[in-house]
C-alpha cells in the first residue's frame, strides 16, 4: 500500500500530499484527547459519569453536576488543553528553526522573562499589608509582556547580519540564567507570602482558571496555531539549513522572525494563564517525531494534541491523586519530562 496520497481539489488550486500513517495517528490522538477531556470533566472530588458529563455539555444534568462541570472543571481543562497545545507547537517550531532537538521555550528565555515579570508584578504592586494595589487580572498581561520583551531582547542580541540558530540558543541560555537569578532575588527581597504565590505560578498550574481566561486563550491560541500550521512548509525548508532554504527561495530571516513571533505569542499566552509549565514544549514534539517523522505538516498538529493530552493528564493527576491537596500541573509535566529528557540523551549517546 502506498504511504502517501496526493489530494487535489478545486481544479488543482488546493493540493496536498498526505501521509496516511500520520493521518491515522492524528485521528487516534483526537479521539484520545476527547476521551481524556470527558474523563477529566467527570473526575475529581465528586465523580460524575461520562454520560452525565455529556448531558451537561448539552444543557442537561442536575444543577450540582452543572455547577461542578461547567464552573469548576471545564475552564481549567480547556485552559490545560490550550496551554499544552500552545507550548507543544511553540516547541516544535523552535526545534525546527534552531535545528536542534533540545530547543524549547524555556531555553530561549521566554518562560524566564515571564517569570521575572510576574514576580516583579507581585513585588511592585503590593502595599505594606501585602495586599495587591491593582487587580490580579493584570498578572497574565505582565507575563505576556515579560515573555515578549525577553524574546525580542534575545533576538536582537543574536543579530549579526541575520540571526543564526546557534547564537540564538547561546544568548537564550545566558538570558534565561540571568532571569532565574533575578526571579530568585526578587522572591527573597519580597514578602514571604508573595514568594509562595509566585512559586506556584512559576511551577505552572491551571488552578483557578475562569471562563474569562478561556475567552482570551482559546481564540489567541487557535489563531496562532493556524498560522503555525500554514507555515509548516517554511519550517520544513529551514530545517535543512540556511543555505538550502535560501537556495530553494525561502526568505530565511524574514520567515525566522515570523516563526519566532508566533512561538513567542504562543508561549506568552500560555505562561500568562498557566505559568511556567515546563518540558511540554520539549517533550511533545519529540514524541510526535517518534510517531510521524520529521515533516512539519504532520508533526505540528500531532505535537499539539500530544501537548494538550500531557497537560490535561498532569492536571487531572494533580487534582485527583493527592486530593484534597492539589499539586500544580507543572510538577507532573516536569516529573514525566525530566526523566524523558534524560532517556532521550541516553538513547542518542551513540549517535
Amino acid at each position, binding site marked *: 500500500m502506498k504511504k502517501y496520497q496526493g489530494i487535489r481539489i478545486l481544479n488543482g488550486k488546493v493540493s496536498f500530499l498526505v501521509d496516511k500513517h500520520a493521518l491515522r495517528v492524528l485521528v487516534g490522538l483526537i479521539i484520545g484527547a476527547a476521551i481524556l477531556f470527558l474523563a477529566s470533566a467527570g473526575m475529581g472530588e465528586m465523580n460524575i459519569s461520562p454520560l452525565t458529563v455529556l448531558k451537561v455539555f448539552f444543557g442537561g444534568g442536575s444543577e450540582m453536576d452543572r455547577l461542578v462541570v461547567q464552573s469548576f472543571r471545564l475552564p481549567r481543562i480547556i485552559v490545560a488543553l490550550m496551554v499544552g497545545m500552545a507550548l507543544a507547537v511553540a516547541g516544535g517550531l523552535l526545534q525546527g528553526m534552531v535545528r536542534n532537538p533540545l530547543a524549547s521555550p524555556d531555553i530561549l528565555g521566554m518562560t524566564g522573562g515571564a517569570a521575572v515579570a510576574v514576580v516583579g508584578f507581585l513585588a511592585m504592586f503590593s502595599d505594606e499589608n501585602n495586599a495587591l494595589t491593582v487587580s490580579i487580572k493584570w498578572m497574565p498581561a505582565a507575563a505576556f509582556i515579560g515573555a515578549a520583551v525577553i524574546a525580542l531582547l534575545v533576538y536582537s542580541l543574536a543579530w549579526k547580519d541575520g540571526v543564526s540558530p546557534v547564537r540564538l540558543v547561546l544568548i537564550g541560555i545566558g538570558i534565561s540564567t540571568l532571569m532565574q537569578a533575578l526571579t530568585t532575588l526578587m522572591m527573597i527581597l519580597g514578602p514571604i507570602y508573595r514568594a509562595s504565590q509566585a512559586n506556584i505560578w512559576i511551577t505552572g498550574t491551571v488552578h483557578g482558571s475562569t471562563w474569562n481566561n478561556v475567552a482570551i486563550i482559546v481564540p489567541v491560541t487557535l489563531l496562532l496555531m493556524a498560522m503555525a500550521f500554514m507555515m509548516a512548509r517554511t519550517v520544513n525548508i529551514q530545517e535543512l539549513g540556511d543555505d538550502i532554504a535560501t*537556495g*530553494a527561495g525561502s526568505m530565511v530571516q524574514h520567515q525566522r522572525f515570523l516563526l519566532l513571533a508566533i512561538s513567542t505569542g504562543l508561549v506568552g499566552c500560555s505562561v500568562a494563564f498557566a505559568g511556567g509549565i515546563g518540558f511540554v514544549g520539549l517533550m511533545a514534539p519529540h514524541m510526535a517525531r517518534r510517531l510521524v517523522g520529521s515533516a512539519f505538516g504532520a508533526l505540528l498538529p500531532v505535537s499539539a494534541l500530544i501537548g494538550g493530552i500531557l497537560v490535561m493528564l498532569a492536571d487531572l493527576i494533580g487534582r485527583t491523586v493527592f486530593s484534597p491537596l492539589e499539586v500544580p500541573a507543572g510538577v507532573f509535566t516536569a516529573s514525566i519530562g525530566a526523566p524523558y529528557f534524560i532517556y532521550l540523551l541516553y538513547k542518542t549517546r551513540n549517535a
Partner: protein
Amino acid sequence: MMTQAIATEKLTLSYGDTIIINEMDLRIPRGEITVFIGGNGSGKSTLLRSIARLLKPRSGSVLLDGEEISRLSTKEIARKMAILPQAPLAPEGLTVLQLVKQGRFPYQSWLKQWSEQDEEKVMGALKATGIDGLQDRPVDSLSGGQRQRVWIAMTLAQDTDIILLDEPTTYLDMTHQIEILDLLFELNEKEGRTILMVLHDLNLACRYAHNVVAIKDQRIYDQGKPEHVVNSQLVKNVFGMDCDVAVDPLFGTPLCIPYGKGRIIKKGVTAHAY
C-alpha cells in the same frame, strides 16, 4: 538567449576586512559543465556561494541570465538556479520523498503543495538519480552515496537550468565519486543543464568539465578547456606544486601526477603531453 548563464562584474568578496575575491569579471557558459579549481582557501567556495546569493558581495554584482541577482526576488532566482551546499544534513527520520519534494518550494504556496507538476518533477528527479525505489526510506538510514543522490534529486526537482554544487563528492569513496559525477555529466548531456561546481580533485575536474576556472590570489588565474589550460605551469602557480601533466590513457584528458616521494618500481616513464 545569451551565451553565458552567469556572469560577475567587478565582484569583490570579503569576510570582514579580508578580501577573498577582488574585482572579478567572470563568464560561465550556458549548457556546459564548469568547475572552479584552486588551492584550499583560494576562495572558490566563497565565489560559488556568492553566485548563489548565499553571501552578499562587498561590491560589484552577479548577473543571472544578464539580470543582477540583487534585483531579483529569491523565489525567482530559485526557479532559475539551484544550489547544493557542501555536506548538507537531513533532519532525523525525514523520508527521501519528503526531502526531494522540498525542491518544489519555489513553486508552492501553503494551499498548493502537491500539484501535478510537482508530482511529475519529483518523480522525474527520483528516477533520474536512480533512487525511485527508496522514496519511503529515511534519508539518515542511507549510505553516503545514496544520500548525495537524494540531495541532488532535490536540486533537480527544483527544475532549474542552472545547478551549482559545492564539492558534491566530499566524503564519498572513489566508486561513489565517479557515480555522482557520471550522473551530473549525464544530466548535462541529456538535458543541457548548466552545471557549475567546485571540485577538489583536479584529475576528475579535467575529465568531466568542459571549462575550468583556476582561482588564485583573489582573481582568475586562467579559464578554458582543461586540455588547453591545465599544464604543469598552472598547477605550480595555482596549487604551488611541482608535477607532470600526462594524458589520461582512457579519456585523453590531462592527468596530473605530482612529484615528491614514493616507491619507484619502474624508472624513466615520464610523459610530457601538455
